[in-house]
């Protein structure tokens, strides 16, 4: 029978999880002890989750875990049950004795779950009661990741279950230093950063998700290239359509990868503007490439169409990156969408019209 306090409550046996190394005796019974080193399977799983391979939710059973040999005075760290988050936290705790309280965030990371409210006051209070934390520890403190704050009202948690919420650092790597410093976070630990690694974190999933639209667009370019004043020609579709399809796909992939990489250096505040300039740069590359390859330039109309299409496409793709950054406000994105989308629509209409005209002149 599943132990009500443990992570067994959803029916899965944690002892079968490869990252459980044993058990720790406590006032509320046996608590599974987790490994603080990541194994190949953990890294492979993270990689698969990044590339959206497999439909399974990448999560761990919520509940109580032990890190090291915690006792009644040991700190309680609260985190989400997204496996990658869980892994990141436990892998930082090699030298720490602590309790780990994993909330059921439906396999979503702390930041997104807090925004949705699943990493929230209700779930926290519920989980504290279900794990009998009052009996487990002598103190009344919970350490939460700072990025959980949009979902948790600290004063309500205190009122409802008697535990004081202490917001720890933004990043898991700072937890040991935070604990050593008597649970004081430096201003630096409280600021989000957006390094290249984080900027690129969503790129694989974006690529996978955009794939079918990009493919569709490439097919359209290919098929429509067969059109001409003399009727339809498959030879033309292959000779002209394939390079056109390749350019459209390359610009799309290029935007998904280069927008995050070059984000701090692309000019403009609006992502649509950043994307536009990235598009201008890619247009230059396409120009050089078609010169080197001696692509047949059929008419100035065809050239003009690409001058409009590439920056427009890149601008649109970059705008969709707003949802993946930790600094774009809802109000700001509303303003951006309202200003940029009409321009992008006009650009797309003019670009496509020019390109189609180019088939016939």
């Amino acid at each position, binding site marked *: 029978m599943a132990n009500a306090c443990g992570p067994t409550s959803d029916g899965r046996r944690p002892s079968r999880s490869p990252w459980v190394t044993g058990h720790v005796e406590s006032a509320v019974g046996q608590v599974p002890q987790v490994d603080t080193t990541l194994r190949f399977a953990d890294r492979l799983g993270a990689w698969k989750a990044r590339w959206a391979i497999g439909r399974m939710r990448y999560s761990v059973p919520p509940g109580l875990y032990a890190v090291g040999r915690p006792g009644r005075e040991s700190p309680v760290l609260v985190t989400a049950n997204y496996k990658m988050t869980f892994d990141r936290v436990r892998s930082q705790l090699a030298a720490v004795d602590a309790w780990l309280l994993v909330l059921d965030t439906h396999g979503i990371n702390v930041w997104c779950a*807090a*925004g949705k409210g699943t990493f929230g006051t209700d779930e926290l209070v519920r989980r504290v009661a279900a794990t009998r934390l009052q009996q487990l520890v002598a103190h009344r403190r919970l350490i939460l990741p*700072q*990025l959980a*704050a*949009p*979902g*948790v*009202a*600290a*004063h309500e948690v205190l009122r409802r279950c008697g535990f004081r919420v202490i*917001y720890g650092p*933004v990043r898991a790597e700072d937890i040991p230093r935070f604990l050593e410093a008597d649970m004081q*976070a430096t*201003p630096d630990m*409280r*600021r*989000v*950063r*957006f390094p290249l690694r984080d900027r690129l974190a969503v790129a694989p999933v974006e690529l996978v998700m955009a794939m079918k639209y990009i493919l569709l667009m490439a097919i359209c370019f290919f098929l429509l290239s067969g059109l001409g004043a003399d009727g339809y020609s498959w030879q033309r579709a292959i000779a002209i359509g394939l390079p056109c399809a390749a350019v459209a796909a390359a610009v799309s992939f290029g935007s998904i990868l280069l927008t995050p990489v070059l*984000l*701090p250096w692309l000019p403009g*505040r*609006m*992502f649509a503007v950043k994307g536009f300039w990235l598009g201008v740069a890619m247009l230059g590359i396409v120009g050089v490439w078609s010169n080197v390859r001696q692509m047949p330039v059929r008419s100035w109309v065809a050239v003009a169409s690409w001058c409009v299409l590439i920056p427009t496409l890149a601008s649109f793709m970059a*705008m*969709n990156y*707003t*949802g*993946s*950054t*930790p*600094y*774009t*406000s*809802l*109000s*700001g*994105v*509303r*303003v*951006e*969408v*309202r200003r940029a*989308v009409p321009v992008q629509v006009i650009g797309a209409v003019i670009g496509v019209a020019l390109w189609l005209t180019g088939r016939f002149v």
Partner: protein
Amino acid sequence: MDRFRYLPGVVTLQIDVRRCDGCRMCVIVCPHAVFCMQDKKARILDADACMECGACAKNCPSGAITVRSGVGCATAMLIETLHRGSCCGG
């Protein structure tokens, strides 16, 4: 985050300093250091850095802070607009 600044003058963040009891929670939870303490009251130091996550308002025990919070995601906004058939903005 100084290299990352979004559009200026658009955020909905507001503080009613009269209701503030100086608990510092907003200073602690804000990931963009938008607040500072001045004469035992919280002040907005850098409103344009705010990403409207809502952490400060949620954790202010005296209800001194208001902000329209949500995820700033153009894709979600476009999808929603297409489904509703009306313009976002609202």
